[in-house]
């Protein structure tokens, strides 16, 4: 399968803008369908990836580092890696937080995925790894 193997991934690179979240969800849906996930898991994956991307978009801080979503299929899991050039932030702790419920993204990722890992990238940026056990 085209997504199998450490070095093989299906990749989508977009500018960090809220309007691109729709494209990201279509990408995630295609990946999920391709490996035969059921509707519920596809929905969960779309929400979790959207949350990771929304966080990246919100904290891109005016920089225009592209947002990259990479899907890798391993023997036992599907991993979506969301990478951006900004630092992962705790919503609500930020000066321009608009609402009281901004902190829902991370709890939702944790609730919907089997594993969530957030890593700082040396030299700047953050990668969120979202895993779904198969």
């Amino acid at each position, binding site marked *: 399968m085209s997504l199998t193997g450490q070095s093989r991934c299906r990749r989508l690179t977009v500018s960090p803008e*809220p*309007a691109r*979240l*729709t494209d990201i*969800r279509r990408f995630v849906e295609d990946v999920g369908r391709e490996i035969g996930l059921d*509707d*519920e898991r596809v*929905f969960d994956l*779309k*929400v979790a990836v*959207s*949350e990771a991307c*929304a966080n990246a*978009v*919100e904290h891109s801080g005016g920089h225009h580092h592209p947002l990259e979503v990479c899907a890798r299929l391993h023997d036992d899991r599907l991993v979506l890696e969301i990478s951006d050039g900004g630092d992962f932030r705790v919503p609500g702790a930020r000066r321009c937080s608009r*609402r*009281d*419920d*901004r902190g*829902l*993204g991370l709890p*939702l990722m944790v*609730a*919907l995925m089997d594993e969530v890992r957030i890593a700082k990238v040396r030299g700047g940026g953050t990668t969120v790894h979202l895993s779904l056990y198969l």
Partner: protein
Amino acid sequence: MQVSSKTERGRPLVVVRGEIDHGNSSDLQAEIDKYMQGGETTLLLDLTDVTYIDSGGVSVLLSTVRKLREHGWLGAIRPNADVRRLIEIVGLKADNGFRIFEDLDSVDTPADKAAVAEPATNSGAETTDP
């Protein structure tokens, strides 16, 4: 996402279609705010044709419930299974200020029975008091 609204049986009904996300949830918030500013204590939200919602949309529901809870409630009409699951995860389903209805007709049944946290019952199962 498309948002429209009307008055249905004396209550404001906001009808949403499509996907509610971080990019467009402020449009939904604005539509709801129109009624909130008018002093409404109950609000209906038709989610029948909502195919996707994430924390962008859920945060709108949460903030609306928070504002209405003391004197009224927010009623969600017919959310699909995925939307319902998210509503449950964030704890809205158990909130006094939030109700789920299977259709508009059930909104008018007595409030204590209409506050459905249960799966849809079939319409023939209604009980009659002696």
